């Protein structure tokens, strides 16, 4: 593993999705992963929106990394991110009004999602454009992966459906608790624990 280029696409993807998964390992961006993970469609919508914004903001920040003065960099990053968030917000409203309505206020709140700011500060401001692009893609996919897992569990347990199709049959009593606030915390807690267990097992080998 150590001989391989740490910035290759495969290595970056592995880091973003598994070993340094932004939600399940680094525990960043908790608000959206708890709030909108009530159905797989919502999770996918949120995950992919964040991925697109993350790629765009990483590329732009990496392009401008030598121009942005150090003292006002956070404000500059937030402005760049907010620009892309607004674009996505308007695109979703125009082309995917259902998803836009069910994600609601959490689309504008992507601005303060710590994952994007963390990648800008920790990676894009120090690395080349192509590497930042790959990092944005990998981190975004890692976030999407985590959201899909959490929302699949919540949708399955909470309403017996998956992607809107009934899976568990009509006799399944809906555990609505999993669609409400406490269910979100409980499911995320168990998913983080299982993910950590799997990760440490792998390292031990």
């Amino acid at each position: 593993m150590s001989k391989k280029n740490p910035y290759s696409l495969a290595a970056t993807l592995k880091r973003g999705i598994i070993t340094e998964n932004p939600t399940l390992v680094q525990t960043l961006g908790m608000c959206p992963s708890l709030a909108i993970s009530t159905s797989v469609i919502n999770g996918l919508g949120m995950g992919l929106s964040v991925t697109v914004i993350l790629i765009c903001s990483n590329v732009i920040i990496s392009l401008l990394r030598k121009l942005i003065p150090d003292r006002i960099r956070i404000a500059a990053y937030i402005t760049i991110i907010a620009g892309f968030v607004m674009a996505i917000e308007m695109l979703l409203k125009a082309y995917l009004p259902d998803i836009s309505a069910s994600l609601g206020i959490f689309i504008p709140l992507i601005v303060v999602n710590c994952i994007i700011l963390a990648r800008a500060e920790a990676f894009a401001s120090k690395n080349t454009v192509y590497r930042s692009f790959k990092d944005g893609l990998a981190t975004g996919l890692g976030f999407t992966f985590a959201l899909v897992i959490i929302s699949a569990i919540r949708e399955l347990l909470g309403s017996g459906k998956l992607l809107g199709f009934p899976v568990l049959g009509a006799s399944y009593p809906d555990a609505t608790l999993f669609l409400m606030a406490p269910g979100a915390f409980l499911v995320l807690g168990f998913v983080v624990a299982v993910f950590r267990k799997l990760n440490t097992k792998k390292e031990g080998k």
Partner: protein
Amino acid sequence: MSFASVLSIMISCIFVENFVLVKFYGICPFLGVSKKMSGSVGMGLAVIFVMTISSLITHAVDVFLLIPFEITYLRTIAFILIIAALVQVVEMFLHKFVPALYSSLGIYLPLITTNCAVLGSALVISQKGAEWGFIEAVLYGAFSGVGFMMALVIFSSVRERLEFSPCPKTFEGLPRTLIAAGLVAMAFMGFSGLKIF
């Protein structure tokens, strides 16, 4: 503005629609700062302070600037810049004039810019549109901040006890914290549907 509607906003912001435990705004500081009771009190006070002022200013910008000129699509960027600037101003003001308060709130202030509770409350108020006056907006911001602080204080006292209890290694740290938060959120579900009028 009658007393009854003030009470109604208060109960709904603090209990029924608690920002953290029901609506999931501001989870990051909720999980990050709640290790110690003293830290959560400081963070809570800082959030109440900033949220009250930011609700007033963002509402004013919304009503007098964004809506008349039909540029409401710029809301997100306008609000986040206002909040970032405001946090900076508050920090400098406290540093200069109230050093005692600054030394206790100081380290929490920069974190507030990226606290989605502050931007969240500004956006919720803007969705109510012009039907909400300034008093409602300020009350909503202030009481949502109080709700945030209450959740933080309750949860930090839970965590202080949790520190000393044995737990399987895989669940140490975040998973255990999340499950405890789930149980606290379950208690808050008891308030759902509570209406005064």
